[in-house]
């Protein structure tokens, strides 16, 4: 197995150019929505809105301005599949379409997926969507095809500010830690890393440097695995099965006393 690879997305240097979105769509030949008809969201400069089956990179625009607009800042973040070390989508997929690759990334095999949408519910980040052309669930593959050919993913290659950095997880974590230290020294004390250690789902292989709470970027504060509910829910159901079975046995049992009554009445008749 090759060394685990991933993305470090430093949101503080993102300029919102969307080169990553375009490069991703071009390389992966993702179709336009609604046949390319313009669709304006009215929300900042963002008409993509969210990651889904045909948008595997999404630049989020967060405008934070005071009432009188004297003070304010833009938060820009290029969002992507987190390639979780413990991946909720992979866990629930019933066809085996979702696999972990030799690069420790998570890939949906489009020729195996049958479009049941379990992975959409399993992903803690709402990353996966259906591609209407293939009828299958799709998301970022971390450019599995490019990685196999020794190339870096299209988005990080296209990023003009190195907001998206590609590399081995080990190296990226060191680089990210150094960047946080640098920002803290410069007075940006709010800088922190989201998903850069093993505590979040065993580690996110695409992790982020943020300067606000995760919710502000549309990221869950405490992402969890779907399997956490398997045992409690299963045990409660088992209890219900026992209750239903016992209730049935008690209700339907053939009571000899009642039968004698019926028999006696029959004989009398």
């Amino acid at each position, binding site marked *: 197995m090759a060394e685990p690879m991933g993305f470090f997305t430093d949101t503080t240097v993102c300029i919102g150019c969307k080169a990553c979105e375009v490069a991703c769509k071009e390389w992966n030949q993702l179709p336009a929505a609604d046949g390319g008809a313009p669709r304006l969201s009215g929300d900042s400069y963002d008409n993509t809105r969210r990651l889904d089956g045909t948008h595997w990179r999404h630049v989020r625009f967060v405008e934070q301005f005071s009432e009188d607009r004297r003070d304010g800042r833009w938060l820009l973040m290029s969002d992507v599949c987190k390639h979780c070390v413990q991946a909720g989508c992979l866990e629930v997929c019933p*066809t085996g379409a979702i696999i972990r690759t030799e690069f420790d990334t998570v890939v949906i095999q489009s020729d195996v997926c049958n479009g049941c949408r379990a992975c959409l519910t399993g992903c803690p980040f709402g990353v996966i969507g259906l591609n209407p052309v293939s009828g299958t669930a799709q998301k970022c593959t971390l450019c599995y095809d490019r990685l196999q050919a020794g190339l870096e993913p299209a988005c990080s290659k296209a990023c003009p500010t190195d907001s998206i950095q590609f590399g081995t997880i080990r190296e990226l974590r060191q680089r990210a830690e150094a960047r946080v230290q640098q920002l803290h020294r410069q007075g940006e004390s709010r800088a922190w890393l989201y998903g850069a250690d093993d505590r979040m789902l065993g580690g996110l292989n695409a992790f982020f440097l943020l300067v606000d709470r995760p919710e502000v970027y549309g990221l869950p504060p405490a992402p969890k695995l779907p399997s956490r509910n398997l045992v409690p829910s299963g045990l409660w159901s088992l209890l219900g099965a026992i209750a239903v079975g016992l209730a049935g046995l008690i209700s339907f049992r053939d009571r000899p006393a009642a039968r004698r009554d019926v028999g006696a009445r029959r004989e009398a008749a």
Partner: protein
Amino acid sequence: MSPAGLPSTFFTAPPEWGWWIVLYFFVGGIAGGAYVLAVLIDLVGRPEARGLARLGYVVAFPAVVVSALLLIVDLHRPERFWHMLVQSETWRPMFKAWSPISFGAWALLAFGAFALVGVLAALHEDGRLRWGWLSRLRPPAPLGIVLGVLGGALGLVVAGYTGVLLAVTNRPIWADSPLLGLLFLVSGASTAAAVLILLATRARRWAADVETLARFDAFALALELVVLVALVASLGSIVPRVWFNAWGLLLLVGVGILGILVPLALEWHPRAPAPSRALAAALVLVGGLLLRVVMLLSAEAVGRVA
């Protein structure tokens, strides 16, 4: 922007599990429940009730076939439905015990086999099929008891795993309570009893055993009410976010009052007249369907945080 304190389940994407899945949850619950009731009657019931048990098998098998069809139609690549059972690349069996859909696909397949045996044996006893060996496949024949117990266990799985399936996600409501599997299982039993009550009432037969079924149904409804209240309580602060709207009203009125409390009151009387019993059964069915409508579609209505 995003309100503070939003639970993490609200940052996920809805899977667009819509009407096909609502109907599947409803029909699948009836399939599992009807088979279980039939086996229970066969195992411990009086001989005169075997006709009612036969009705259970006759309901369960078509219901499980319809269930499978509903699931296949819901796929966006229905021609690949078999990928749930066989690995398309290696032809090895595809089974993941911890993935409720994978587990459920196998449970449904296996249950379908038991339900088929059940309906064939029932038709044999009915005189519609004349294969002598079929009588060995239904209780009180020893092999029939084994088949019935195994099939009954699978029937309970089919009725209940759908709620576990919803829990083993990251979606609002579904993943926020451990009680959906229990709720669906109990509701499956009560809706199956309601179907049998309606069919038997229409056939004007087995009056004494229908009374027993109604008594069982009343117990199931009472349990369902307790579980439903516990589920709402277990959701806690999620409730205002997801059910202080038309969905909540539908859950309260459609499921709680019309689907549980009213039929419970109607069935509580030991010697209720047939029409009121039939009305109660019909209301149980409506409530069972609405329960699944609310549980699925109210969570679907919570979109991604934009």
